[in-house]
Structure formats: C-alpha cells, structure tokens
C-alpha cells in the first residue's frame, strides 16, 4: 500500500507539513481560520516534526502491518482496514483512554484536548495526494508503495 515516507536527509524542519495537515482536516479549509479559531476548539495536525541537532524528521502514523495501537485499543475504535491496509479510526467509538498513545512506537497519535479523543493520520481520506506531501517545499515526504 502507499504510505507517506519522510526523508530525514532533506527535511528542513519548516513544519509546513503540520500546517497543511491542520488545514486539510479543518472545517474551514482555511489555514488562518484553522489556526486562529479551530485550534482553540481542539484541532491538531496528525503530523509532528522532530528535531535533534541539524536532523529533522516529520512523523505521522505509519499504518503498520501489525499495529500495536489496534491491539491496545480497548473500544475497537482503531482497526485495520483489510481492503486498503490502512490503520483506521472511528472517532465515535474512542473513549479517550489513551492506551493507543502509549502503545504506538512512533508517538504518532495525539490528543484532541477539547474532545477527549485521539487524532490520527487518515492518509488524507478523500484527497488524491496527502496534504503534507503536497505542501512540503523540499520533497522530504513521499507518498509511495515500498
């Protein structure tokens, strides 16, 4: 399956991917409104850029083959879609126990503080090209089948 792969050699740590993810998952689809208004009501990017010295890397859900988050999820909100291979999330079932947060080895799951539920990459359901990949100015993210 196609996944989003980061390339730490050319990630420049600009965090633009985070803003793209945020915008793509906002109601308004407008960066300025998403940051100023929707963030206040809990909207967060599914992506986070980590930095150590000169090295930066942008991480989000890996859509693992055998996802530990799915095993850890107590409510069945996280599940593996057999057809697409994606690790999916049904927000209505999430009870905010944060088990998955601790289980994910990539730290790829985040909280929506106001909803008390998780936020996780859905590979930009409905978009041809994931927002983060499209927005990255240095081709440090690729969407491909490896």
């Amino acid at each position, binding site marked *: 399956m196609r996944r989003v792969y980061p390339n730490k*050699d050319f990630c*420049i740590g*600009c*965090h633009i991917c985070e803003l793209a993810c945020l915008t793509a998952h906002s109601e308004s689809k407008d*960066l300025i409104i998403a940051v100023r208004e929707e963030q206040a009501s809990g909207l967060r990017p599914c992506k986070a850029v980590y930095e150590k010295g*000169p090295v930066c890397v942008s991480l989000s859900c890996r859509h693992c083959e055998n996802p530990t988050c799915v095993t850890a999820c107590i409510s069945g909100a996280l599940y593996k879609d057999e057809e697409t291979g994606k690790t999916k999330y049904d927000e209505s079932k999430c009870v905010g126990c944060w088990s998955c947060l601790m289980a994910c080895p990539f730290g790829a799951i985040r909280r929506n503080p106001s909803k008390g539920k998780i936020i996780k990459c859905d590979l930009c359901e409905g978009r041809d090209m994931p927002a983060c990949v499209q927005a990255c*100015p*240095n*081709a440090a993210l690729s969407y491909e089948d490896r």
Partner: protein
Amino acid sequence: MLFKPISQNFNDFVIDRDKERCINCEVCVRQCSYEAHFWDDARQCVMHDNTKCVGCHRCEALCPTGCLTIKKNPADFRDNALWTPTYMKHIYKQGDTGGILLSGMGSPSAKPIYWDNLQLDASQVTNPSIDPLREPMELRTYLGSKPDKVEVEETPEGPRLKTKIGPQIKLEYPMMFSAMSFGSINFNLHKAMAMAATELGIVYNTGEGGLHPTLYKYGANTIVQVASGRFGVHKDYLNAGAAIEIKVGQGAKPGIGGHLPGEKIDEEVSKTRMVPVGSDAISPAPHHDIYSIEDLLQLIYALKEATEYRVPVSVKIAAVHNAPAIASGIVRAGADIVVLDGFRGGTGAAPTMIRDNVGIPVELALAQVDNRLRDEGIRNWASLVVAGGTRCSADVIKAIALGADAVYIATSALVAVGCTLCGRCYTGKCPWGIATNEARLKKRQNPEIAAKRLTNLVKAWGHEIQEMLGGMGLNSIESLRGNRDKLRGIGLNEVELDILGVKHAGR
C-alpha cells in the same frame, strides 16, 4: 535601535508583516538564517529586526499565509547624484570595521550590458524561416582544437577521415555549468549539476575545490579545474573528467585569488580539497609557476601528459584590457579552449571595489578575441567560451553570433534553484541552502529537485535557441557561430559598433 551602532540602523530592507494574516507559525523564524525573525516571548508573537535582513526573500517565499513582504527601506537620504546611499553605506561600514568591503555574486553596478543593445535578425520572404518542431535543428557543439584542414580518403566503405582530430568535449546544448567550487557551494548542488549535466549531455565544472569521490562516476560530464591553489588536484582527479580547465582569472575578481573561509571547510570539503578542517583555503592571485606564456605552455602540456592527450585543456581568463593578445598567447601555448569571464560573473566572495571596477564587458572582449584569432588564422586551434552574466537564451545566442562556441552559465543556474541574488554568499549562511555548508542549511537543496530544475532551465533555453535559429532561417548552431551579420546594434556609438563588429540597426 537600542544596543546597535548608528550605522547599522541604516538598513537596506524592511520586513512588512501583515498582522491580519500572520498566524505566528514561526516558519519565517526557522527559515531566516540571519535571525531577523524571532519569537517575542513578552508579546507572545513573532517579531522581527529589520537591521538583520539581507533581502534574500526566503521567509517571504515560504510563509504559508503569504503575509510577508520584504521591501526596500524607503528611508531616503537627501538626493545627491554623486553620493548615492550605496557609497555612503560603504563608508559607514568601513568606518565601523576598518576592513575591505566584501561582496557576493557578480557586479550589480549600472554599467553597459551590450546584450541589450544587440538585436537578432529574422527571415522574411526570401530564405524562409524553419520550424524547429517539424525540421531537425542542430544544437550539438564540439569544443576543442580543430585541424587547419581535413583530409578524406576513399575506402570501399565510403569516404573516411584521414586527419586525426584532437580530443573534444561533446555538448548537446551550447551551454555548460560554470565553475563553482565544492566548498563555495555545497555537495548537494555539485551532485545536482553532475546529474543535470549527465541527463542533458553537457558538462559542469568542478571549480577549484576538487571532486568529491562519489561524483567520479559523472566524470564524462565533468570539467575538472586546476587553479592557483591546486586544491584537490591529483592524478586521478585530472583523469576523472572530460576536460581540464586551468583557471588563470575570474571575471568577478580579476587579478586576485580566492579565499574560502574556514567556516565553510567541513569534513567533506576538507577531504576533497586536501586542506585541514576549519582552516582558510587561500588561492594565491597568480599561479606561482606561471609568469609567462611559456610557463603556461609548460603547465598545459604537463596536464596533457598527465592525461595522455585524451582530454582537451581549457584556459580561463577574466575579460581585461588586453584580452585579445593574451588569448592569442594562450591558444599558441596549446590550449584547446579559451574561456573569457566577464565582470558580471558571480563569485562566493570578492572585494567589492575589484568586483565593481576591474575588467571590461565580456561582449567587447569576446568580439575582439574572436577577431584577433581569426586575423592570426588560429581561430580553429581553440574553441571560445564566454562566461559571466548570461541571463537568458537570447544572451546565449547573441554570444554565439558574436563568436563564442559555447557559453558557461552559473548565476542563472543558481537562480533556477532559488538564489535571489542577495549577494551575501560570503557569510556562509545562504538561506536558500546554496552558498553554505552548514548542515542545517545545505539540506534545503534537495539534489533531485535541483537537478530537475537545472535540466528544465537548459532544455527551455535550448528550445528558445532553436526557435530563434529557425526564425533566422538557420538549422544549426554552427551556422550562427561568429555570424555577426545576424546582429544589429541599437543605441551604440561608432566605436562600440566597430569593436563589436556589427552594423547599426537600419544599416
């Protein structure tokens, strides 16, 4: 501003942030390597310090809300035709530092650009124009010494060339990426130039910094340079490329050497240049073994011996007053290619006074060198290449009509990968990741993207050159070379026209 010397507050640029749209995302803070933007803890928002801005426009290009505009500082000194702000600011700076003024990139001074005073011809009615989309249009160019005459013999398989032709560089486009050393620009861009040159069937020049071991595989598309510092020169290096270039002079700083500051010399640069990490790499002004044409001849033949006469040897000089006589000597000393570098040619660092006041326009030097070599009957002994300030395909084609075999491009190549000509290359902090070896900054150039952009640029210019050739009713670049009848001058005086060897428009 508080805590700053007065002179620094005469800043060149102002940062205009539209607070209506700024989302305080700090993208600009992370992008600006001069720390002009910063997070203001007291106000809990992004703020800026105009005095630090060099006008590179990196922040403006990456701001995701498009709310930044970098503007020229509108603060005006009293009008004075003699004392323009540029000269006053130079003096303030020197009053502060006591040092020589440094600049990056080619001269921005308002001196004549003869390309702009030359117009190309086009066919009408007679000698119809050619459509390059329907008919073959040859851009292939061979650089190297051509024999005085060729002998052909008849064989049962047809005619065969009897004369032995010396080594040539084969170019699919009459353009090459000019010398920019590994060190002055970083590895990612060297790799990108090597990849693009290979894809395009042209060559790039290593500059005086040696060749990184991983780039030897692109040797067939590489010119290796030997300059006065002899950095990174050894037998394998000389034999790695498609040609060797002896750099005697550089257009941006004729008469002086080079200085790569220690900060730019990291582990990789140090290995390739063969100098210690962090030490300044100083190229002397002259080659200490060249004090005459005879000495140059010895070096040319030493290099030919070292490479067993397999590759052409090029000699690059800055376009200066006596360029024609010097070029004639160079050709007679055995050079297969002569390169003339004009004062608009870029550089990582040059003393400002030299950059802006030494040398002559490359257009004039080119026309005169071509004339001189023709008059002496030795024009075919060497190819002629011009470098320094070709901005578009029209400049390239005009150079060829004036007598050049090919053109070196460098500044335009850097602009293609993001350079905004801020002219601060000597700081080593290029926000576009070009003239820097800082790990955080150099990765801003992704070689895959850069190679693609360089390839696109040369292909685009190639298409345009084909269109212009076709318009003139020519079907190969060979037919234009030195064909000054295809040029007419506009707004030029008698002397200029005479030097350029072109008629005025209307004649």
